């Protein structure tokens, strides 16, 4: 083992030795709920993509109009699918890295139940038009309060486990998980509560601090915690370099929070604040490259494993998407680039690469890895898992690339005021059709993934897979 390489702590103890220790009830509940919402919200996602192609679709039903389904899509995917799936992984990872049982399974199950109340509440309230009108913070205040309570329950359980740990040394994933829990508390309170006491540009600034950090300080650290655990696990390789993970973690904790105002470049917000946001956006390259270097380094000489290791396929393509999306981000914040791509369809292409291409890929990999271990069986079908990878990959690439090309073209047209606005809309009709078709492929990915996990749970191993 080259110097600096570390295995996830506890690995030495061997997985089998720990096998009897964990009941994992909480992880199971979070995992199953999140996959159910992935499927349900996937239908919503397809519906709103279809509305771009057929604007009159379901157009006379207020509950199903675009403007009410879009927040359901965004919040459903973020807080119904991705976050609870990541939380399931945390409930799985932390006790194993600490060498002890989860602090309280009862509290964990209660958290899962409360989380389901929140998501089901959102499924009813958002289409009814009840929302705060702030991006990513649409959930009505009553539900936001429940989120805070659930998050405290989650935090107590995880910190309780960490503080009673058997291994003194904390593996990287644990730092990221602790960071996620604490930063989220403040980021979420800012976006959902502090915004209620402010107006105008001041509110927008808090809103975008939250939007940016919902991705940067919630989904990024928890997603990286998952990847830091599962890349060495799935490849059975020790992590490349411990010092590099420190650089990644500590630069992330300092740099990310400064950049909210880059969502309002050229807009009605102080120029000096825009410049600060741009400077720090460029610095985001540091934590990202440190992490990606570490992941690639871990795979050195092991790339052949990608051929038939499905979790590893998701993890490493997720890493590539992470590198790309986090290269786009800082570039978008340059004023000249921003003048073209900002507010265009390029942006949903970028956002989907981050949350689907990177963080959902990490979560899916985790789900494929843990499901057979949680239910003490084997994955239902490796072939179907491979199919789900290619559905997500081709659908995802189709989605990202089409929207980048379309969005760039759209921005270029906007910058020529001689072109009437409606012509720039018509120009995107074919782009939106391709986006819908890519969405269908991605939905096939969701279905095959969800079916595979569910079939694993009811224990139907397909022979000759």
């Amino acid at each position, binding site marked *: 083992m080259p110097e600096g390489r570390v295995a996830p702590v506890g690995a030495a103890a061997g997985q089998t030795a720990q096998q009897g220790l964990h009941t994992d009830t909480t992880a199971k509940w979070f995992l199953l709920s999140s996959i159910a919402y992935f499927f349900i919200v996937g239908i919503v996602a397809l519906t709103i993509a279809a509305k771009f192609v057929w*604007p009159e679709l379901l157009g006379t039903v207020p509950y199903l109009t675009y403007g009410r389904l879009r927040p359901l899509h965004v919040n459903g995917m973020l807080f119904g699918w991705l976050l609870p799936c990541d939380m399931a992984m945390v409930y799985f990872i932390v006790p194993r890295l600490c060498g002890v049982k989860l602090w309280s399974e009862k509290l964990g199950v209660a958290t899962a139940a409360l989380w389901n109340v929140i998501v089901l509440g959102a499924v009813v309230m958002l289409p009814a*038009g009840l929302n705060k009108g702030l991006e990513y913070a649409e959930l009505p205040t009553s539900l936001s309060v429940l989120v805070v309570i659930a998050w405290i329950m989650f935090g107590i359980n995880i910190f309780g486990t960490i503080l009673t740990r058997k291994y003194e040394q904390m593996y990287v994933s644990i730092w990221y998980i602790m960071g996620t829990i604490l930063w989220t508390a403040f980021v979420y309170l800012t976006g959902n509560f502090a915004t209620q006491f402010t107006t105008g540009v001041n509110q927008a*600034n808090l809103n975008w601090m939250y939007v940016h950090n919902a991705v940067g300080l919630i989904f990024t650290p928890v997603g990286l915690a998952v990847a830091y655990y599962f890349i060495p696990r799935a490849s059975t390789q020790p992590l490349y370099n411990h010092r590099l993970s420190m650089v990644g973690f500590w630069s992330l904790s300092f740099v990310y929070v400064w950049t909210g105002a880059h969502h309002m470049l050229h807009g009605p917000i102080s120029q000096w604040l825009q410049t600060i946001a741009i400077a720090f956006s460029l610095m985001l390259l540091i934590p990202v490259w440190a992490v990606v270097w570490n992941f690639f380094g871990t795979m050195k000489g092991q790339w052949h494993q990608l051929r038939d290791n499905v979790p590893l396929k998701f993890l490493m393509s997720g890493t590539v998407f992470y590198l790309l999306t986090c290269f786009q981000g800082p570039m978008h914040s340059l004023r000249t680039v921003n003048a073209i791509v900002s507010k265009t369809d390029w942006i949903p292409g970028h956002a989907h690469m981050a949350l689907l291409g990177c963080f959902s890929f990490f979560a899916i990999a985790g789900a494929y890895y843990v499901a057979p271990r949680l239910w003490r069986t084997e994955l239902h079908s490796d072939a179907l898992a491979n199919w789900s990878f290619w559905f997500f990959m081709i659908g995802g690439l189709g989605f990202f690339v089409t929207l980048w090309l379309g969005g760039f073209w759209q921005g270029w047209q906007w910058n020529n005021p001689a072109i009437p606005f409606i012509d720039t809309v018509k120009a995107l009709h074919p782009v939106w059709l391709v986006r819908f078709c890519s969405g269908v492929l991605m939905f096939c990915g969701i279905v095959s993934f969800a079916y595979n996990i569910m079939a694993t749970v009811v224990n139907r191993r397909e022979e000759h897979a």
Partner: protein
Amino acid sequence: MLNRADKSAGFAIGAALVLFFIGGTLTTVIPPLVDKSWGRPFENHDPSKGPTGKLRPYTELEKHGLAIYTREGCWYCHTQQTRTLVADTKRSGWRGVDSPISTPDEFVYDQPHMFGTKRTGPDLSRVGGKYNTQWHRTHFRNPRDLTPGSVMPPFPWIANDEGEFQALLAYIQRLGRAKDWRPDGDYEQ
């Protein structure tokens, strides 16, 4: 020092929060204290300093309109900011007159703010007074009757509800009017 954070959860938490709060405070709490225009409503009576006018608080009817605008998620597709880009001032302009750039003091009463992040439909920061009542009623009933190629959803439940329609209309006709930017006050009713 970094190695210490490896072993002590308390130290790691403390350091992670301190680093976070430096940027968090400097970019959210400090800016509104430094830049007063974020909280002071627009008012200008001197034509040599740009468009004149005064930002007034929302009426009850306009507030209701903003609530409808929020409920239907109009802001997912319509931004409300004329940015510091020439193209934006042309596109938000009307009948050959460029729109003034949006400034923070025009949005002081907005709760929630409606700046938006995605521009699927045109920007609405200066839409107030561009189209008359009849145009809006027809447009909400089916946007494609007036603008073929549009992908905006129809809103029959608003167009057919006089109370909601009037409220939303009052809100729309107010947008961008704090700056009295039209040369002859040629606003539509």
